[in-house]
């Protein structure tokens, strides 16, 4: 058996900037293999975002060990983390975080700019990914000229443009209506099945969590439930609902 893509062992995240230290993540251990589609849910303030930031190499755990693709993340410096985020991890936010004043194409091409891919090549690649996500006719649009669903798809395109091994999404559907939310979740399913990208999605809604093959529930900084569906989340019933 090949080693897991992500291995988290006894990870703690404690915020000490308040009067009482806040233990946002408490002793979480978890392994996620390449090709999995994981949904994370839990009450507000249960530490889901904090955990995602650690997994996404945006933040370092206070204690514990985290290996990504066999590398110990807690030993990397800021620059190495940035390079890892750039090449191996795509992050999708609830509020899209596209740069205004910048066209969709250039927004999507931005991660490649940090790899010093030449302008033409990165624009071509950005157009390719946007086309795949159904935004091929919106390349020169600015984010504020698009609907929320379209903006989120552009943000996903930006996360995918460097062909990462891992796609993280923290409440990607939080700002979208039910129909658009379902479309985004179907898109994740498709990426996971077709392109074999490992996907981790945080979502409040259990019916959206049902798209994933594995469902983890957080409560008060700990994992209280971790279920893998026997059919790997690929039941006909879910995808046609």
């Amino acid at each position: 058996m090949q080693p897991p893509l992500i291995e988290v062992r006894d990870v703690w995240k404690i915020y000490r900037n308040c009067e009482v230290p806040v233990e946002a993540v408490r002793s979480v251990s978890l392994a996620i293999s390449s090709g999995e589609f994981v949904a994370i849910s839990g009450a507000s303030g249960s530490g889901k975002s904090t955990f995602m930031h650690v997994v996404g190499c945006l933040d370092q755990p206070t204690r514990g060990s985290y290996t990504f693709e066999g590398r110990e993340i807690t030993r990397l410096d800021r620059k190495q983390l940035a390079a890892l985020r750039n090449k191996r991890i795509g992050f999708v936010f609830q509020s899209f975080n596209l740069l205004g004043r910048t066209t969709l194409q250039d927004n999507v091409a931005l991660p490649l700019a940090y790899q010093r891919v030449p302008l033409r090549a990165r624009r071509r690649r950005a157009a390719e990914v946007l086309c795949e996500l159904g935004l091929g006719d919106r390349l020169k649009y600015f984010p504020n000229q698009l609907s929320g669903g379209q903006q989120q798809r552009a943000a996903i395109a930006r996360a995918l443009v460097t062909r990462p091994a891992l796609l993280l999404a923290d409440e990607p559907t939080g700002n979208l209506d039910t129909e658009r939310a379902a479309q985004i979740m179907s898109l994740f399913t498709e990426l996971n099945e077709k392109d074999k990208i490992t996907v981790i999605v945080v979502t409040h809604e259990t019916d959206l969590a049902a798209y994933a093959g594995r469902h983890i529930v957080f409560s008060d900084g700990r994992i209280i439930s971790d279920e893998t569906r026997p059919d790997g989340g690929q039941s006909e019933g879910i995808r046609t609902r």
Partner: protein
Amino acid sequence: MSPLTVIYEAFISLSHNKVRTGLSVLGIVIGIASVIAMVAVGEGARQRVERQIESLGDDWLTIRFWGMQRGGVNRQQGVQPYLAESDADAIGSECPAVRAATPSNTMRVQVVSSFRNHQTSVQGVYPDYFDIRRWRTVEGRLFTDDDMIALRRVCCIGQSSAAELFGGVYPIGQTIRVNRITFEVVGLLETKGTGGEGRDFDDVILFPWRVFQRLVAGNEISQTMYAAAAHGAPLSIAREQIRALLRQRHRLTKEENDDFRVVDRSVAAQASAETTRTFNWLLMTIACISLVVGGVGIMNVTLVSVTERTREIGTRMAIGANGTHILGQFLTEAVVLCAVGGLFGFLGGVLVAQLVSWRLGWDVLISTWMALLAILFSTVVGLTFGFYPAWRASRLDPIEALRYE
């Protein structure tokens, strides 16, 4: 990121806040404009002083009678208590390092032309004086040894005196009266400009020495003498030879001080050049202060920009920008801002310098290296004052930046 991309992004982001960008650039424009204007004015002044030194010549000496310094010491019988024509002749003929020498006597008198009266300096000199001072005519001719021997009542007139006495009338062939004696103007001298002390070198009328002594001054005294070094001979050697000769001629004993002074004109010119340099530094300092004020404006606007775009910084970090990328981004914005200001500042400075030369009649000098200076200065200001805000941006924590409202 490639440098071109970074610069392109800087232009995009700056162009979206035109009013703010414009206002912050204004400080740099004013700063660079004043630096360029000051440099142009300063260079103009420096070149003028240099031209003046050039036109005055640096190979001649003034010898002044300084007899009062002898104090109570009794003069020996039969020794001249002043410089005389014969001293000048001796210097001219006996000092090998001297090319030419002339006695000189200057007075301020009322001169009368057929148009006007004018109070001016009248001076009697040998024709050699023109060679010593490198003075030429623009109209007519210089007076000659012939004129002096024949005691012709002729004179050469400086530009300012000519303007005062004759207005626009062609001065050659006109007559002037001094002490009720009529002289003919035979030469109009080229302009020598004004001295550092505001003295007008062109407000003078020159007469052949003997004519002047007899008809204007009425004595043989030479207040002053001028001597020029022989070609290639150092001025210091000429000075020493003159000193030795005059001491001998004035029969001064070892204990006695010189009763004359040999003054090097270039000393005065050097002093004038020194003053100009000091003045230039003062102007530059003031200009640089205004540039620093402009730089603080850039720092301020970059800080505001960093704060405003904290979420953008977080997003960029999340998709793979490291501290260096962010630092480069904001530093480039500050430098682009300053470089644009430097460009307009250069144009503004040239404009101001032209205005100064046009309205005040000052000499200004504008050359291409000043454009390079503007670019260099503005870039340095951008790097200096952009660094702190850019560094702060680069140190932001990705998560905190993303959370920023």
